[in-house]
């Protein structure tokens, strides 16, 4: 059983965070919250998303799992204005999701959850550095790095207590240096890793510019990006495996 009413913007923010990595996913319809966890086919990027029942206008669920084509669901959600309410109801018999947006009804065929890639276990990482900054700052660093390269280096200078977003291109270099006073918070530690911009750019697209992004970082280790949406009732963790120099 699943029946919910949610604002189009909240639904879209949720779907956007997942669709940067996968085209289809399982959605867990727990009693207290909706949750999605997915990893891309190369096992490079992962997303873990939770949207609390309180983020919905109304929410009733009993722990079922559905498989959805994200692209299609995003298109349907895209038919609504940001403030419009979207009605969702699962038909258990036909295994279809009924969606209603301002007089438009859409019946979405679901995908057998067993046919979707297994949800990943979240690697248990103890990352030594933690940086909290605004989405806009991260976006600025990524945009600049993208001008010169297809990979990006995230680094903490422990002595200066600064966070660096760097890129080395064919001929040009980029370094966005953020002092602790520029940041919302900084726990310095040994942290220096290289990441694919293809992935990071996509993840960054899902992050609002006024969101607080908590970055956990290590040396040649995956990075974790945490942020909230839907007034703190939705949380997302992205995890991205690094590009490494030596194995």
């Amino acid at each position, binding site marked *: 059983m699943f029946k919910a009413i949610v604002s189009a913007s909240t639904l879209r923010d949720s779907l956007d965070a997942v669709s940067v990595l996968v085209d289809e996913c399982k959605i867990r319809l727990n009693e207290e919250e909706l949750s999605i966890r997915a990893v891309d086919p*190369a*096992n*490079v*990027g992962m997303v873990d998303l939770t949207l609390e029942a309180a983020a919905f206008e109304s929410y009733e669920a009993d722990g079922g799992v559905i498989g959805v084509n994200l692209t299609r669901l995003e298109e349907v959600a895209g038919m609504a204005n940001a403030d419009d309410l979207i009605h969702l109801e699962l038909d258990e018999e036909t295994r279809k999701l009924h969606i209603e947006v301002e007089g438009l009804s859409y019946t979405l065929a679901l995908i057998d959850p067993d046919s979707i890639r297994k949800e990943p276990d979240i690697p248990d990482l103890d990352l030594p550095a933690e940086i909290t900054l605004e989405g806009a700052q991260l976006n600025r660093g990524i945009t600049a790095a993208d001008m010169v390269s297809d990979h990006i280096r995230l680094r903490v200078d422990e002595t200066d207590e600064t966070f660096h977003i760097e890129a080395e291109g064919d001929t040009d270099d980029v370094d966005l240096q953020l002092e602790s006073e520029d940041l919302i918070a900084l726990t310095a530690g040994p942290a220096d890793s290289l990441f*694919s911009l293809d992935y990071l750019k996509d993840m960054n697209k899902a992050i609002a510019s006024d969101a607080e992004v908590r970055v956990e970082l290590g040396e040649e280790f*995956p990075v974790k990006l945490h942020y909230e949406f839907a007034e703190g009732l939705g949380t997302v963790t992205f995890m991205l*495996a690094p*590009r*490494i*120099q030596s194995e």
Partner: protein
Amino acid sequence: MRLDEYLEYEADEAAERRRLAEEKNYEILDQLESFENRFEEHVTDDSLVGSVSPSIFVGRSNYPEVSTGILSPVGHEDDAGRFETSGEWYDEGVGIADVFERRTSLLNSNRTGVGVDVHDAWDGFTGVQREIAIADRPVGVEVGLDGRPEVDYDVSRDDVATPVGPRATAQSADLTENPHVPRPVEKTLEDDDWQAQGAINYLYRRGFDVYDINTILSAGALGQAENRKLVPTRWSITAVDDTVGQYLRGTLRGNRSVDSVQVWHNEYLGNSFWVVLAPGKWEYELVEMKAPGSIWNPDPDAGTYLASAHEQFEGRTGYVDETAGAYYAARLGVLEHLSEIGRQGKALVLRHVSDDYWGPVGVWQVREAVRHAFEGEHGTAESLSGAVSEIGSHLPVSAARLRRKSTMAAGVQSSLLEF
């Protein structure tokens, strides 16, 4: 930089290339003269030429109104097959001068301003051309020419089919025998509801090499009816390399990875190739280092020219700006090897174009050199970056410069499962 410096360079470039080619081998010019002599002997009356044709050519300028021609080695009818570009050229060990000799021996009887929509055209000049393309051996033709062939010795920037042989405008073309068409090709022809990609991969799986498929695609003989168009030879080569490569890449997705870092090497026609295979999910990059004085970097003081293109596990979405057709040709060679051993992995291909590469022979050279790189012994290394530093001493650029240019030399993509 001042604008006039740039303009001057543009003008010099073409002249310089021509000078290089001429200095290195005068035989090419002799070759064109000897063509004229042979041609005299084979012209039955004023304009009718009887020969055989192993292949066709479709130009790309002015698309969709293109120039398209029947290629025939006038005076060499007995061994016409060897004039058609194929993997056998590598096995034969042809040199750059041999390639030029073969290419310039082919008379291109062509028509210009031909519309590319040909799905139901099986008569007239286009029809004859398509029959030649689908046949698996050279076909007897009689071409009526409008005037004398023009000998146009031009080493152009086109890295595929240059230099070209003599050209003449064709008034008419007729087959003098029934072409032999292999059964699988007939099958793809008959099914005009079959997308070109599927038909290309079908032919590849049935043992046709990309050279044959390229000619068939180029003649507009593959794909769904409304999409059957003449495809310029150069585009067609890249399309087939890319399509077959995507197919092979798809078949490798679930495979185990190679279990060690391997370094393979091959050298052909002044080009050195190192292929580094490393454990992990599929990832590929071609880095080209073009020596000053080589054909695409003619200025001896220019320094090594670097180009690269890269793809991750799911391929690339953007167009390959740098390295162009060589990217897909080298990728095909790597994927065929991985497919043969039933593994996947990370592949970094380093191509050093030395100044011995004085004339452009086409991307087949890249494809065959990489395909044959996996013969014989290979070196080993602890990691991909270790392999790159070992190779470093043979390369014309510093490790730092290579790392700046090459995504994979800077770092290879790890998986979350490794942590």
